[in-house]
């Protein structure tokens, strides 16, 4: 039953697109606020249904026929230069299900979370969300690099618009531009890479490229450079060192946006791209080594910054960066399947973490974990969050345990001992910083007065519970029926021990005060100082921007005005002056003119004599 696949995939893609167009073009509908939300939610819900249907079909298809259907987009004399279409295979459909599901839940949750937002701006919010769903699905279903890049940039646009959703807040405006610029830096590599790949292979199409790669007809000259450049796109989008600095700032956006775009879906696009293009990356082991090392380093670096952060959303953002590092490390070590599996489970429980954090922020009107606490009596608030935390920390039998262990196994199998050690240390820190947040934000003694309402909107709670149920289900499914990896037998125990060690340390430090966090901080003073300042990377980029780029721009502007144009003005001024001087020859005195005529006649005579002789 494959004949319906492209049509159904186009339905999945078309529903959010139609919703976006309706909200963008029909002003009264958009300004109706909650009605606009209803339209968007209906569309994405229907898209989720269609994606599930398609997923069931796609997993049971023959692997050898091309899963892509394409139409010409940029025509040319012969074959079109670029095509657009849909690619329906297990990878794209699994991702499509994840994207539509999380989008649907987040949009639902937003109705309650943004209840105080004025109607017109709520309509704008849902228009952006529809555009995002469409773009992300377009990226996921892309059958060619060029389409992937198109939607890659569009999800970046949605991220920009949604980070800056409260555009009159200066911090949001700054964070939006920063996110756009930093990811754009990576995208420069991406676009240059695909252009170079097109020049050498003659196509952007994945299926054709994979065929060439498998058949050995893909020109390998310069391929390492090309794949490195393409990987740079993933570095920006998936917040790998050193371009990870935009993601924590992106938390200026509304919390549901952080859950959807900056945790579950968009930021994983880089990992998705590397997984999708793995047949090509597989040909360039040098680049893969780099991918693995950078991923593992990012994982540990971000985890260390999460340990000293007091803003709950930023802790989660660092944790996202860190987990993306795990995925990238797995992909680099030659285990893209494991990377993708972690992407999916992480998408579910990280969305839950953000939405759970949104509930807490809703209660306390602050992001600071030290000003929260006293929620032991509200299991509806903390149970889903703690479940997701356990999943992230990697406790059996939750899904994070399995997928993280698979990543560690994959990295070890690939022979990457260094990255393995970094990732193992990161696993310990992950458990530690997450439970630090749990103990501070939920179970610390209540801080007097501050929180206004102890009521959690039903819709928000329902969404959280749904995701919690899904997390548990995913874990149990793997625990019961999942196939086991030929990993060393000690690995699951090590993994579990690291996680439990982290939990235990957090419990001891933040519940018992032994050892006292302040004492620990003092003991690790240099490290703590560096981590708090984000290892100076943000400052470095800011300095390069202000004292490098803007200073250069001012200089060039000055040179253009006062040197390049200055020369012209000098020529012009000389002409004016010359005219002014020559003008004085016209004295208006007849004698002067007679002298002139006489002199001229003399010259003519001399000239005539000289010319004749």
């Amino acid at each position, binding site marked *: 039953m494959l004949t319906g696949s492209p049509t159904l995939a186009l339905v999945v893609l078309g529903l959010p697109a139609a919703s976006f167009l309706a909200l963008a073009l029909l002003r009264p509908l958009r300004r109706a606020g909650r009605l606009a939300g209803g339209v968007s939610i209906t569309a994405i819900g229907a898209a989720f249904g269609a994606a599930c249907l398609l997923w069931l079909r796609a997993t049971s298809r023959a692997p050898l026929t091309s899963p892509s259907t394409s139409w*010409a*987009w*940029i*025509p*040319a*004399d012969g074959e079109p*230069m*670029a095509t657009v279409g849909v690619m329906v295979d297990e990878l794209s459909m699994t991702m499509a299900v994840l994207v539509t599901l999380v989008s649907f839940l987040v949009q639902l949750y937003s109705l309650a979370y943004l209840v105080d937002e004025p109607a017109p701006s709520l309509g704008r919010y849902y228009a952006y969300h529809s555009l995002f769903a469409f773009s992300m699905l377009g990226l996921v279903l892309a059958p060619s690099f*060029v389409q992937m*890049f*198109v*939607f890659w*940039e*569009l999800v970046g*646009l949605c991220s920009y618009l949604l980070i*800056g959703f409260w*555009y*009159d*807040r*200066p911090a*949001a*405006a*700054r964070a*939006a*531009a920063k996110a*756009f*610029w930093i990811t*754009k*830096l990576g995208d*420069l590599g991406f*676009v*240059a890479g695909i*252009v*170079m790949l*097109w*020049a050498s292979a003659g196509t952007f199409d994945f299926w054709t490229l994979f065929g060439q790669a498998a058949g050995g007809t893909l020109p390998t000259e310069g391929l390492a450079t090309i794949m490195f450049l393409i990987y740079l796109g993933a570095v920006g989008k998936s917040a790998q060192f050193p371009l990870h600095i935009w993601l924590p700032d992106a938390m200026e956006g509304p919390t549901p946006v952080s859950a959807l775009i900056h945790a579950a879906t968009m930021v994983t696009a880089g990992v998705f791209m590397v997984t999708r293009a793995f047949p090509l990356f597989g040909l360039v082991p040098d680049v893969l080594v780099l991918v693995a090392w950078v991923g593992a380093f990012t994982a540990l670096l971000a985890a260390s910054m999460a340990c000293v952060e007091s803003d709950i959303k930023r802790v989660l953002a660092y944790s996202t960066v860190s987990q993306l590092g795990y995925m990238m490390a797995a992909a680099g070590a030659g285990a893209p399947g494991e990377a993708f599996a972690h992407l999916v489970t992480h998408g579910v429980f990280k969305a839950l973490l953000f939405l759970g954090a949104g509930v807490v922020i809703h209660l306390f009107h602050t992001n600071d974990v030290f000003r929260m606490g006293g929620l032991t009596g509200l299991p509806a608030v903390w149970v889903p969050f703690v479940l997701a935390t356990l999943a992230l920390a990697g406790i059996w039998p939750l899904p994070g345990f399995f997928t993280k262990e698979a990543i560690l196994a994959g990295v070890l199998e690939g022979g990457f001992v260094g990255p393995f050690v970094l990732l193992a240390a990161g696993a310990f820190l992950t458990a530690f910083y997450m439970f630090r947040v749990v103990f501070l934000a939920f179970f610390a003694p209540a801080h007097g007065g501050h929180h206004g309402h102890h009521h959690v909107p039903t819709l928000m709670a329902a969404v959280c519970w749904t995701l919690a149920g899904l997390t548990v289900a995913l874990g149990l499914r793997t625990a019961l029926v999942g196939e086991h990896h030929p990993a060393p037998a000690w690995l699951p125990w090590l993994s579990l021990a690291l996680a439990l060690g982290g939990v235990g340390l957090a419990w001891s430090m933040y519940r018992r005060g032994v050892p006292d966090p302040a004492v620990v901080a003092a003991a690790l003073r240099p490290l703590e100082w560096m981590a708090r300042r984000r290892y100076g990377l943000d400052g470095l980029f800011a300095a390069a921007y202000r004292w490098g*780029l*803007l200073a*250069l*721009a*001012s*200089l*060039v*502007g*000055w040179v*253009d*005005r*006062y*040197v*390049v*144009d*200055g*020369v*012209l*003005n*000098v020529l*012009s*001024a000389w002409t*004016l*002056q010359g005219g002014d001087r020559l003008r004085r020859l016209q004295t208006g005195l007849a004698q002067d003119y007679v002298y002139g005529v006489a002199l001229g006649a003399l010259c003519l005579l001399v000239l005539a004599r000289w010319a004749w002789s």
Partner: protein
Amino acid sequence: MIPFPVLSIITWAPFVGAVLIMFTARHRPLAVRLIALVTTTISTVLSVFIYVVYDREAAGFQFYERVPLVPPLGISYEVAVDGMSLLMVLLTSVIIFAGVFASWTVATRSQEFYALLLALVTGVYGVFVSLDVFVFFLFYELAVLPMYLLIGIWGSSGEVRPRGVFAWAFRQTGVGTKEYAAMKLTLYLLFGSAFILVGMFALYVNAGAASFSFLDLEATTFDPTVQFWVFLAFYVGFGILAGIWPLHTWSPDGHASAPTAVSMLHAGVLMKLGAYGVVRLGMGLLPEGATDLAWLVGSIACVNVVYGALSAMGQTDLKYVIAYSSVSHMGLVMLGAATLTEAGLNGAVFQMFAHGVMTGLFFALVGLVYEKAHSREIFRMGGFGRVMPGIATAFTVASLSSLGLPATSGFVAELLTFMGAWRSAHPWWLWPAVAGTFLTAVYVLRVAKQIFWGPPSPHFHHLEDARGPEWVALVLLTAVIVVFGVAPGLAIGPVDTATVPLLARIIRP
């Protein structure tokens, strides 16, 4: 075929409008606008019409008309369009149609203003449709000269502090005033015209002094030395209008001083005349000259891209930012053309269209912002998004097209240029081109953030969003940007039919 002279109607309708305005609409501002609107609507509707009915299978020059003017010299009024000029005619129509609405509020001497504007548009149409090189030149001058009056009378002066070792020259020439800008622009472009005129006559004489017709000249193979020098003359002459570095300095001053509709037309369409001239006459008639000098054209274009973008970033006056962005984007146009590849040339022509619409929208918006806030100083503005959401949205779309975001026409143009650059004889051109897109992203979003984002200042609470006729310009241009970005085939289909034969002549085995 079409039984009526459709290209002549498109070309001359605005001119007739100009004459009617001068003789029948004295002191009746509404009549002035209605005449302008009706005549440009005629041109616009017919442009869309020929765009639709142009036979893409047959390709080549269509809607041919010919009237001999001076038979002994081989000069005739000969017009036709191919895929490339078709798109340029459409661009001109879109911009002038929007421009009529954007200058709806011109109060002083609107009769003369509209008459000059319409005469100028006839010149632009004429350049794009002329096949006779002599008449081409006449139209070219008609397009350039009214600019002097339009800027000198209706323009606005900025402030430029004389600094540096050449400060004395700045004081003497009056840099910053509209009179200075008008004079500089006119003299510079006439200086370029001199090169074009010489090149033109050199071709005419070398081809046997029998005909100025493009078709006859195209059939002639010129001596390589002639090709080299004439191509160089055309490149400098037309290149000045296309803003090539370092002969671009007329453009920021001119565009910044010009009134809104004039900036729109000048940056949106007139600069394309320069690029069009290089492609049509330079590359079309002088294939070997083009091959020999492609390295120069492309390398200078790279300087344009990066230098223009950096200069734009260094400005504090909003109009100057947009004006310098044109210098940068015209670099991309010339770069695409210099690659001498199908992708690059299609990208160049499409970039002409994309940049024309985008910069037209930018100047329309800047004009609106200036009219309302009475300021062009970027860092004195802020938080306008709250009070003028429509303008902010349109500005965002223009910015995104400028930085080459997919789903705007700017992206496809840039992508094709990149593809062409890497396939050309000078693959390193890819890097400045790519760097230029990043620099563009920095300066446009920085400006957008400063002006439209951030907390609304109490200073600007009274400002209003766009009104009535202004909306027409904004919506039209925004829609064109998005439609052509989503479906680039609409433009590249016909363009490709013109660029492929052109390249076939250049790259002969």
